[in-house]
């Protein structure tokens, strides 16, 4: 039994059931881009103990103890070997995270760690370290009527004029229980992301934008000890640095020998897309105000550096 899925503009045929991904008709004429196979991996692939990976330009092997091993090859195949006693949902977390990240790197997309919404002016990315509030802000923007494109692993391509474009991922977001509560999303009955985490999977097919969109703005989410909420535009060199720092699993690039194409794509983004630091106080999330400020910024901003602004609460009604 094989399942057929669509994600990142690619058609997948999978031995494994993946409820996170939208299913597509199997009778379609479209060729399969990526095969996801269950299988045993050769034992002579030597790996460091513990969580780890090894890579050469064509192959990427990821080891997750007690969960699974994954071999990602040539951007068109992932062999998954679930380990004894593992839980399918855990196997899927690392498949859709690191293994998909490696797959997109191999296909030479620029892979960023971001949540993305579609807006009338283009794709808006929320980036930043884990825990910065990417998914929470994504949830708040969806509550305001924006459609999601990506949560977590974001693929970017250049169009024929070298303009950065965001490829839609799949219609699934993850929320921590407290964030879900803030957004009036009930977690009752929703699957947990991993057994031990208080993080829930929300499937949102009606609020998904499923075509490729030019990149409009990037917001790096950051905390500060100040009480002010503000947005600062970055100069180009810092934009470049931000793209590097927010490249998904940046270290994979070395083994895959993809530093050179990555450098080129990152500089196109730094040249053409405004990157802003969106700062909120570390004390108290102030989600509504923070989202007001960012929504206001991407709605009326073409992204020029001279339009930096700082916002005070209440300015946006």
């Amino acid at each position: 039994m094989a399942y057929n899925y669509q994600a990142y503009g690619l058609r997948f045929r999978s031995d494994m059931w993946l409820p996170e991904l939208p299913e597509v008709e199997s009778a379609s004429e479209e060729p399969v881009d990526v095969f996801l196979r269950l299988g045993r991996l050769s034992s002579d692939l030597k790996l460091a103990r513990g969580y780890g990976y090894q890579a050469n330009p064509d192959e990427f092997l990821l080891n997750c103890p007690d969960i699974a091993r994954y071999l990602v090859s040539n951007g068109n195949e992932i062999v998954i070997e679930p380990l004894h006693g593992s839980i399918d949902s855990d196997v899927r977390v690392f498949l859709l995270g690191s293994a998909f990240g490696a797959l997109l790197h191999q296909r030479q997309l620029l892979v960023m760690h971001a949540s993305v919404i579609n807006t009338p002016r283009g794709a808006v990315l929320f980036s930043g370290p884990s825990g910065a509030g990417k998914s929470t802000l994504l949830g708040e923007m969806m509550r305001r009527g924006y459609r999601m494109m990506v949560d977590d692993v974001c693929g970017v391509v250049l169009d024929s004029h070298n303009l950065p474009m965001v490829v839609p991922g799949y219609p699934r977001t993850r929320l921590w229980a407290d964030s879900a509560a803030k957004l009036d999303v009930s977690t009752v009955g929703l699957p947990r992301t991993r057994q031990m985490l208080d993080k829930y999977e929300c499937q949102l097919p009606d609020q998904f934008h499923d075509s490729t969109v030019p990149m409009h703005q990037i917001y790096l989410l950051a905390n500060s000890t100040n009480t002010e909420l503000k947005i600062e535009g970055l100069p180009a060199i810092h934009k470049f640095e931000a793209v590097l720092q927010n490249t998904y699993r940046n270290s994979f690039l070395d083994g895959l020998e993809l530093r050179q194409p990555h450098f080129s794509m990152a500089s196109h983004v730094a040249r053409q897309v405004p990157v802003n630091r969106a700062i909120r106080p570390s004390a108290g999330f102030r989600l509504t105000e923070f989202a007001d400020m960012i929504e206001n910024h991407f709605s009326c901003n073409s992204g020029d550096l001279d339009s930096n602004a700082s916002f005070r609460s209440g300015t946006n009604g």
Partner: protein
Amino acid sequence: MSNRKLSLTTIVVAREDLLSSNLSDEELVMMDIDRGYYYGLENVAKAIWDVLGQPQSILSICNKIVEEYDADPQMVKEDTIKFVGEMLDEKLIVIYEEKKSA
């Protein structure tokens, strides 16, 4: 820090195998692929880098900067020698050995 002797007649040139990309007229990023290091250059630093595609004496670099920025020649000399030393330390440029003529 480098303790090599640099003089105005020292000839230097950019390494050929660095990746570089202009982000704007005043900003450039480069990468040393072998070492995995990234560098950003702005303004005068970028202007100096831009002439180092060809072997240049430090004096010739200084003259170009003085001309372009209408700057104080003595200050430009000091700053340029310091910056060239830093770029040599980072192995972004090399000292150009001219063919010894017989």
